[in-house]
């Protein structure tokens, strides 16, 4: 397997062109392997007839359950819209990036960069929205996450230690995924924006020479690595979304709410005090944004 594509430039200097498309296959295989392994292992750990996700606790075991409505708002409409627009653009990006490599020929470049611009816009929105309006710390890993996460992982793999406890709004795994997505996504976007300088767009005329050959090679490699990483990550993400034990979360990303029971089962009200509502929409979630609620 090749990792890089290299070629002599016009001056016969060996330069990087990008990652080898072998990596695309590697990423796809890694994604599938992870899913299969996880699914199988979950079955094994859980024993017959049960899914391995495991409920971390039982309803009512947490404090502050009183006064909760039947439905707890988990994702505001804005957040959901963001998520799905982002998901759509990401999917478009992946399809337009990799299907042509697979031999499916179509005019992909414009769609790809436009999807990239959409993604960028949603992300800018998301960053502003989650720092100004929402509480970005809910998704940020802290010390306890690390401890919890390691323990959970250990438990999942070996069955030892304690099962995952109740979490704040986002479980450690969610947070880890988000972090990875931040890194990989930013990598892809920053390099993608640079790459847009090489083609004619509505913003500017192509100029392949804003960076030197060597630098461009790095840009393409980073973009390529991020791209193939996104294949694996998207696969894993979709896998979890469709797993029955995570369906309550997926539903919340569609409809916005989780049930009171789900809330009480999975979350520690100390760590995450949601606003109260009937699957409400457009909540400004002022209380949730109160750092004290998290601490």
């Amino acid at each position, binding site marked *: 397997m090749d990792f890089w594509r290299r070629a002599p430039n*016009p*001056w*016969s200097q060996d330069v990087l062109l990008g990652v080898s498309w072998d990596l695309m296959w590697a990423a796809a295989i890694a994604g599938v392997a992870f899913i299969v392994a996880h699914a199988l292992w979950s079955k094994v750990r859980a024993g017959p007839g049960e899914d391995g996700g495991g409920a971390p606790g039982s309803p009512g075991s947490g404090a502050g359950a009183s006064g909760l409505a039947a439905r707890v708002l988990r994702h505001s409409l804005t957040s959901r819209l963001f998520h799905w627009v982002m998901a759509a653009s990401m999917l478009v990006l992946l399809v337009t990036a990799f299907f042509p490599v697979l031999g499916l020929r179509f005019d992909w470049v414009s769609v790809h960069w436009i999807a990239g611009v959409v993604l960028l816009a949603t992300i800018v929105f998301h960053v502003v929205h989650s720092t100004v309006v929402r509480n970005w710390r809910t998704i940020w890993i802290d010390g306890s996450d690390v401890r919890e996460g390691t323990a959970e992982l250990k438990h999942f793999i070996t069955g030892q230690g304690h099962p995952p406890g109740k979490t704040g709004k986002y479980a450690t795994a969610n947070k880890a995924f988000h972090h990875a997505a931040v890194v990989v996504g930013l990598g892809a976007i920053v390099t993608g924006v640079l790459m847009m300088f090489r083609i004619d767009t509505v913003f500017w005329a192509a100029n392949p020479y804003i960076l030197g050959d060597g630098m461009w090679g790095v840009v393409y490699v980073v973009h390529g690595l991020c791209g193939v990483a996104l294949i694996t990550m998207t696969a894993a993400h979709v896998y979890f979304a469709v797993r029955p034990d995570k369906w309550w979360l997926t539903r919340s990303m569609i409809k916005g709410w989780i049930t009171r029971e789900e809330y009480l089962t999975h979350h520690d009200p100390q760590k995450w005090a949601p606003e109260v509502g009937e699957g409400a929409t457009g909540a400004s979630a002022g209380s949730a944004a109160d750092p004290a609620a998290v601490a």
Partner: protein
Amino acid sequence: MAEQLIGVDIAPPDLVAKVTGRAKYAEDFRAEGMVFAKLLISPMPHARVRRIDARRALAMEGVVGILTADDITPVDAPGEACLTMEPLYQGEPILAIAAVDETTAANAIEAVNVDLQPLPFALDPLQSLRPGGADARTEGNTYVRTQESRDFQSLKWPRSVFDDAPPGTLPMGEPQTEWTIGDVDAGFADAAVVIEETLSHQSLTHHPMEPRSTMAYWQNGKLYIHTSTQSVARTQAAIAAQMDLELDDVVLIGEYCGGGFGSKITGSPIMLVPAFFSRKLGRPVMMRINRYEEHYVGRARPGFQAWTKMGFRSDGRMTALDLYIVQDHGPYGLSGDHNSAASTASLTYQPENMRFRGVTVYTNTPPRAAQRAPGGGAIVAMLEPLIDKAARELGVDRVDIRMINAPADNEAWMGANQRPLTSNFVRRAIRIGADQFDWAAKRQLSGQRQGTKATGVGIGVSPYSGGSSGFDGLIVIRPDGRLYIHQGIGNLGTHSFADTARVAAEILGMNWRDCQVIWGDTSQHLPWSSVQAGSQTTHAHTRANHAAAMDALAKLQQIAAMDLGGSPSDYMVDEGRVFRRANRSRGLSFARAAERAIELGGRFDGHELPEDIHVMTVGSATGLAGQGLMGVAKDNYGGEGAIQSWVVGFARVEVDVETGHVELKEYLGSADCGVVLHPRSLAAQIHGGAIQGFGMARSQKWVMDPKWGAGFANRFYTARPPGILDVPLEMDWVAVGEPDPQSPVGARGIGEPPLGAGAAAITSAIADALGGQCLCRTPLTTDVILAALEGREQPFSILDAHV
């Protein structure tokens, strides 16, 4: 009576060999144990070689060795060596590898790793002249020669020079060269019409048919070298000098040369690679140059970025000519095209006042060399349409304005030192050309439209140097009764190696079938000769052979007088015999005379030689001594003034106003080159040179990517020399035929001037078809013409180089 040999058509002696393919060019030779060399050329326009790793290449089966710059005699800057560790243009050879076959050598080159450090580079002279602009060479961007010193200089003009020049106008900072005759400002004050334009002319590769291949080997300390060269005697001398050898230790074989056009005057640096390599390896080395490499190492005509201002009185007389030329010099040597351009302009128009300013700037582009009518061809192609413009504004006929400005006789002046000419009949050439072309009728067609086709007629007056003198002639009449004419000039397809030999035969009254020209192999005892360039040969070697024949004639007469009585002047020659004027039967055959010469020895058979001949001729004559009656002499005929020939071109074109396509309908060249030695070969020169001029004026140029300094016109189809369909069906010629009185034969050279005539006639005709609009650039490609016709933006600015 022996046949007439001057002024008649006679096929050259190499004709059959050429058309049957038996002629052997440099790359056709083979030698025992011969290996093939291939070059590694620089991908960068300017770089320093940091490291060469050829281990993989040298380990390949069949590879026999490597030659780098360390293995060759160094050359002082700004001279050019055949290999370098600091390539100054893309395509410059860095090293060579030899192998038992060419494919292996090529594969080995691919296996070499050369670590190159890119250095700043300059492609466009004007960019290099800007403050902060890159210099093509680490030492600077120009070379200054003064009385006191000669050195590189980094010449930069102040920013204001560039800022003050309106777009599309040549910025003109301080020049390097400047001369003035009279007072141009006064001239302009006198003028009824003043024309001022920025001009441009693109660089173009010579691209002769035969690339410069060479095979070399050493035997007993002597270098045997088969190469493609325009000159033979002079190339031998050049190789000896460059390899630090005695003249005798170089044997040069170059019987055939598939064209040079100035790019192979004494060969070119690359021919030394097999010479050094075979010395290093102890085996014969053949290096064939392919078309791609030829583009890089094959020399090119310098480009010009120029400006002119001309003043005319109401009768059309040029009162002042102001000319500024920025020359694109390439990376090596000292090229004087811009100076020749200025002196050619001065000669053509005899302006009452003139100023020339010029700068020549090194660039990281393939090396320049003289190309057929260097400087002169380019300048007339640029200026002639402007002469038309003045004529139009003044209401003077375009032939008349040329007549009035062309020099009337040999009292003309030329260049800064204002030399007169040996003779000059250009006005007659204009007149008979105009008559034969039927100018009076054709000019009525000017601007006429038929459908989308607009007709234009044009004239181009083109002088160029037509000779040199002072070389040696060497002939021998052997006891077989035949005349052997030794020629040290080359054979690049012009016939002059044979045509100039016929002068000796004619003087000695011999039939051509009894004569043998010996040429192309320095082991065959060749006399010191002119370079086969600059249109020198016809003039120089009709004279040298004349001198040798006169010497032989005198010796024949003396022997006859000795043996048969009377005085030498009682005897004459014809049909291979020397006999008494009064009684044809009292005489000797040349065969007998040759025997007698050998018996007599001394100066008769070459054992005693004139004192004034060149050492090379001494050596050759000594080698031939005792073989027969020898005629050997230096051309001491003398003469005053510059030797210049002229061609006046007349062209009719049709420009399609919807496509910019130009069709050349007819062309006529009218020459003033003294006595016509050989009509058919004169026609070949007038037409062939014109066709080359058509290429320069219409399609040939370089294209280089400015970011990478890389050239794309490196194949015939991208370099675009004209093809046969670009040549008009009707091509005609005429010659004045007036002898040059300062030469015993009266013939001048004709190689160069046809090019400028062809090019200028077309640029003038195209401007005429466009209603007098001068685009002031060569080549005038389809896109340039169409953009002008459509009033659209030109594809390139007039000052862009290599586009």
